[in-house]
C-alpha cells in the first residue's frame, strides 16, 4: 500500500524545467478533469442528483461551511484518537513480539491471519458491544489501523543488521541499550511505513463506523445526504474528508522526515504491506 514514493522521476538531479513539468502536468490534468466535468454537466444537462457540477459542490461547501465544519470536527478528532491508540498499541505489541520468541511464535501467525480477513465486517459487532456512537467508530478504526502497524513494526525490529547487534553484544551493551540505539532506529522507516498505512486505515474505519452508526460526523452527513439524494452535499463532505486524509497523511510524512533526520538515519522506505 505505501509503495508511493518510488516511482515518478527517479532522476537524481532534477532541472528546473522538470520540476515545473512535475507540478504543472498533474495539477493541469486535475484542473482539466474538473473543467470537463463542469462543461459536461452543463452541456448534457446531467441531473444534479446523478452528478452535480463542481461549481454546485463549491456552492454547497461555501454556503453550508459552518454546518459541515461542525461535522468535520468529530470525524477529525475520532481519526486522530484512533490513529494514536493504534500506533501506541501496535508499536508496543511489536516490541513485545521482538523480545520474546514465545510470544512471537504464539501470536504472529494470528496477527497475519487478521491482516488477511476483512476486519471491517466486524463493525456491526462493535455496535452490539458498544452501542451507537463515537466510541464504536473509534474502536472500529483502532481495530483496523492496528494490524498494519504491528506487522510493519515487527518486520522493522528484526531487520537490524546482525553485525551491528553482534557488535553491541561484544561491547556488552544491555538488551535495552541495543534496542534503544540499534533496533529501534533501524525499525523507524518500517514503523512509519506502517503508520502511513495505519492513518489511512483509521480514516476508513471512522468513516465506515459513521456510515453505520453515527449521528454525527462526515460519514453520517454522506449517508444522510445520499439518502436525501443531495449528491452535491455528498461530494462536499467527500472533499472535506479528502482534505483531512491528506492532512493527516502529510503530518505523518513530516514527522517521519523529522524523526529520521534526528536519528541521522536512512531515507524513508516504501512498501511494506
Amino acid at each position: 500500500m505505501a509503495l508511493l514514493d518510488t516511482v515518478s522521476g527517479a532522476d537524481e538531479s532534477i532541472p528546473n524545467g522538470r520540476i515545473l513539468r512535475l507540478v504543472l502536468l498533474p495539477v493541469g490534468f486535475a484542473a482539466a478533469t474538473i473543467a470537463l466535468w463542469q462543461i459536461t454537466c452543463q452541456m448534457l444537462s446531467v441531473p444534479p442528483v446523478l452528478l452535480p457540477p463542481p461549481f454546485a459542490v463549491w456552492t454547497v461547501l461555501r454556503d453550508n461551511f459552518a454546518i459541515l465544519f461542525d461535522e468535520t470536527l468529530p470525524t477529525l478528532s475520532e481519526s486522530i484518537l484512533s490513529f494514536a491508540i493504534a500506533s501506541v498499541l501496535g508499536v508496543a505489541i511489536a516490541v513485545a513480539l521482538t523480545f520474546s520468541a514465545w510470544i512471537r511464535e504464539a501470536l504472529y501467525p494470528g496477527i497475519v491471519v487478521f491482516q488477511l480477513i476483512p476486519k471491517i465486517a466486524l463493525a456491526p459487532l462493535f455496535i452490539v458491544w458498544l452501542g451507537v456512537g463515537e466510541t464504536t467508530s473509534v474502536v472500529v478504526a483502532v481495530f483496523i489501523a492496528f494490524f498494519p502497524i504491528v506487522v510493519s513494526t515487527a518486520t522493522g525490529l528484526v531487520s537490524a543488521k546482525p553485525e551491528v547487534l553482534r557488535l553491541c553484544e561484544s561491547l556488552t551493551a544491555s538488551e535495552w541499550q541495543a534496542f534503544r540505539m540499534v533496533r529501534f532506529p533501524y525499525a523507524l522507516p518500517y514503523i512509519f511505513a506502517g503508520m502511513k498505512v495505519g492513518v489511512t486505515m483509521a480514516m476508513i474505519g471512522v468513516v465506515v463506523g459513521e456510515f453505520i452508526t453515527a449521528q454525527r460526523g462526515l460519514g453520517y452527513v454522506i449517508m444522510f445526504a445520499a439518502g436525501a439524494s443531495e449528491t452535491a452535499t455528498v461530494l462536499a463532505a467527500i472533499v472535506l474528508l479528502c482534505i483531512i486524509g491528506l492532512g493527516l497523511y502529510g503530518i505523518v510524512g513530516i514527522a517521519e522526515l523529522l524523526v529520521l533526520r534526528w536519528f541521522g538515519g536512512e531515507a524513508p522506505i516504501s512498501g511494506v504491506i
Partner: protein
Amino acid sequence: MPAVVRQGIVPALGPNLRRARPIILPIATTAAALLLWQLAAVQLHIPTVLLPTPIEVAREMWRAFPILMDQTWPTALDTLLAFAAAAVLGIGLAIVITYSPLMRDTLYPNLVFFQLVPKVALAPLFVIWLGFGSPARVAFATFISFFPVVISGAVGFAGTDQAVLRLCRSLTASEWRSFLLVRFPFALPAIFSGLKVAMTMAVVGVIIGEFISSQAGLGHYIMNAGSRLETADVFAALGALSVLGIVLYGAVALAEFGVRRVYGRR
C-alpha cells in the same frame, strides 16, 4: 513476512519439538483463547447477545451452513469480478505509465492522491449511480482495489534492472520482447504484492457495499443479524467471511508461486 517468525534465538528444546514449535504454538494459542472465551462466557454469565460462546457459534454455523453458503456466493462472485477488473485495469494503466513519461508525470501524482484519501466515502455515490444491485458493489470494490495495483505495478516496472534493458536493446530485442522477457518478470513480485492488497481491498469494498445497499451477501447477512441482535449469527457469518478472505488471498499467493516458478525462481 513469515521471515520474522523464523528469525530469533530459539532456546534449547528437542530438535523435533523445536521445529514443530512455530506450528504448535499458534494452534495452542488459538485453542487456549477459544477455551478462555468459552469459560469466561459461561462462568461470568455473559448474555449470548453480547458474546455467544464458541460452541454456540459452532452450532449456529452448522445449523445455518446452507444459508451461509448461499450468502457467500454473491459476495465471492462480486469480489472476484472486482478483483479481476482491478487487476486488468491496474496492470494496463501501470504499463501505460511505464512507457509514456508524459502519462506518468500527469497521472501518477493524481493516483497517489487517490491512494491517500478515504475512498470508502464514495460508496453511497456508487449506489446513487448504479442502484442497489451488484454492479454498484463491483464498481465500488474495483474502484478501491484498483489503486494499489497501479501503484505497485508502476513501481515494479520502473524498478527493472537498467543494465538488462540495455542488453536487450543491444541485442536488438523488440520493445515487446524485452517487456515480455525482462520488465514483466522483474515486476512480478511488486505486481503480486499489489494484487494481494487488491484482493483484501476487493473483499472490503464488497462488504461495505453490502452493508449499505444489498439484499444478499455476507455483509448484508451480518448487518441483518447484528440489527436483530443475533450475535452468534454474526460470528458464524464472520467465520464464513474470514474463510472466504483467506481462500481468495491464498489463491493470489498460489498464483504468484506458480507464475514465478514458470519464470524461474528469483
